[in-house]
């Protein structure tokens, strides 16, 4: 059964987030040969429509309005609902990001539909589109299907591979005019804390520090390693509680959930709450002085040793191979 699937592109700092390309790939699967329509919402976003098409969208719809400069659930839901009215899609896919988590349930309520959140895999089986998602903080998984109405899902960043970019692809872009009004909340100020360097939730490499980094300065060797590997810095709750770093870096049950290709845990003991935020990473490296540390149980590779010795050595070794590559 071929379907028309709408994908909301997510724009951050004037560019599309990677999860958008992953959402297009997911939408292609859900569409089963049908059409994938990209949707861009913002004050000035139409310049990005080509990229949606290069990554697999068949055509693009844009909704531009001054009141859409910043995300609000009221503004964006009016824009998205207008697109739904215009297109009558059979499916909608968004990223499971701060925006997607906030917006998708509102749209689902309006459409009286189901919504499958935080999807890490999508496949066709037995005539259904089957969504896999972690439950119990990644300690188990469930497979879900839609039994009635719209196929609607948010996908977790870094889990579904995007399609290869093809700059020869072309498609139509059309603008949808929507009268955005009656916003019930106004963003007065945005305090950027997490914007330095690579986006933690989308990073392919994460270097995380725990209590073992001992101080704010203790993160310096980790930052040097992150720079060499083009990775992001993360932290355990212990390191945040001890004020070695900002809570925006916290990974775990109450922080961010990350699934990078490579997770290097430095001086992290591996409390169950921390594991909930990173145990689905593809490859985990643990560096800890304590050979009994829990983190070694989930690690693929471990080095028992002082992170202040090991991490700088690692940085040097990686530099060598990356220069040769």
């Amino acid at each position: 059964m071929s379907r028309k699937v709408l994908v909301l592109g997510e724009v951050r700092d004037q560019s599309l987030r990677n999860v958008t390309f992953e959402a297009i790939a997911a939408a292609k699967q859900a569409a089963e040969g049908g059409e994938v329509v990209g949707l861009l919402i913002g004050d000035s976003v139409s310049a990005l429509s080509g990229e949606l098409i290069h990554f697999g969208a068949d055509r693009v719809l844009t909704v531009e309005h001054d009141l859409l400069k910043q995300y609000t659930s009221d503004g964006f839901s009016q824009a998205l609902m207008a697109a739904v009215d215009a297109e009558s899609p059979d499916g909608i896919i968004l990223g499971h990001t701060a925006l997607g988590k906030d917006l998708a349930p509102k749209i689902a309520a309006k459409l009286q539909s189901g919504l499958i959140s935080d999807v890490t895999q999508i496949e066709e089986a037995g005539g259904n589109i089957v969504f896999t998602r972690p439950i119990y903080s990644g300690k188990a998984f469930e497979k879900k299907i839609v039994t009635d109405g719209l196929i609607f899902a948010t996908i977790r960043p870094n889990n579904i591979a995007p399609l290869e970019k093809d700059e020869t692809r072309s498609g139509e872009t059309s603008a949808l005019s929507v009268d955005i009004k009656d916003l019930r909340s106004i963003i007065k100020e945005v305090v950027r804390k997490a914007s330095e360097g690579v986006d933690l939730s989308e990073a392919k490499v994460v270097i995380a520090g725990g209590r073992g980094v001992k101080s704010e300065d203790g993160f310096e060797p980790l930052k040097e390693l992150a720079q060499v590997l083009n990775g992001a810095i993360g932290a355990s709750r212990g390191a945040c509680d001890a004020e070695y770093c900002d809570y925006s870096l916290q990974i775990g049950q109450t922080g961010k959930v990350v699934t990078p290709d490579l997770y290097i845990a430095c001086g992290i003991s591996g409390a169950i709450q921390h594991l909930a935020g990173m145990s689905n990473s593809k490859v985990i490296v643990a560096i800890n002085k304590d050979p009994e540390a829990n983190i070694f149980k989930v690690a693929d590779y471990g080095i028992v040793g002082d992170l202040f010795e090991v991490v700088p050595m690692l940085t040097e070794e990686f530099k060598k191979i990356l220069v040769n590559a």
Partner: protein
Amino acid sequence: MNIYVLLKRTFDTEEKITISSGKINEDGAEFIINPYDEYAVEEAIQVRDAHGGEVTVVSVGSEEGEKQLRTALAMGADKAVLINTEDDLEEGDQFTTSKILAEYLKDKEADLILAGNVAIDGGSGQVGPRVADLLDIPYITTITKLEIDGTNVSVVRDVEGDSEVIETSLPLLVTAQQGLNEPRYPSLPGIMKAKKKPLDELELDDLDLDEDDVEPKTKTIEVYLPPKKEAGRILEGELQDQVKELVQLLHNEAKVV
């Protein structure tokens, strides 16, 4: 101020998860108030203490949810309502739960509704925003600060680590993020008082809903545990050699660098 808290009973964070006959095994497991809902309860109590009014805690589920509702009453909430769906519903999803809650709340003239931003078991984070939309009131998710002045509300929202300062107004629904407050432990006098506080039990009938109205839109077809990871390799030898080996392994074997 008329304050409501949406509360879910969940597995204790520390519980080991096992599966029997295709379902998460609940036998003998410890249950708690979903940790994010605990922040919501605490905030509701603080808002009431500052502005006056009443806090009602609402939960949808089975009779067993009574225990968690009593805990919220012991923390300081005034009333509790359990919407018991055990006899009426075999399955539900977020559509089901939000519809039931909205149906209950629609004539309550709530000024402020608080919920956790996500439940640590199902992890979908949908119910709060869905309920707000069904009630046609604004909502702000993942908040770390709440200030109320008359009907004006100033909120700080956590957005993947960045903070947004947002102005909005009552009536409003907010969902709590870690950092909003430090939930109190129930005191002994609190626990004693909680036993006498009203805890009403409702069924779908009482809300003029029948099973068909809340039939789920999605279905879980399989629950499974992640494949057990093979024991990792702890490297050995001189530290410098271990580091060299690790870099080679990551580059050539795991191919992640």
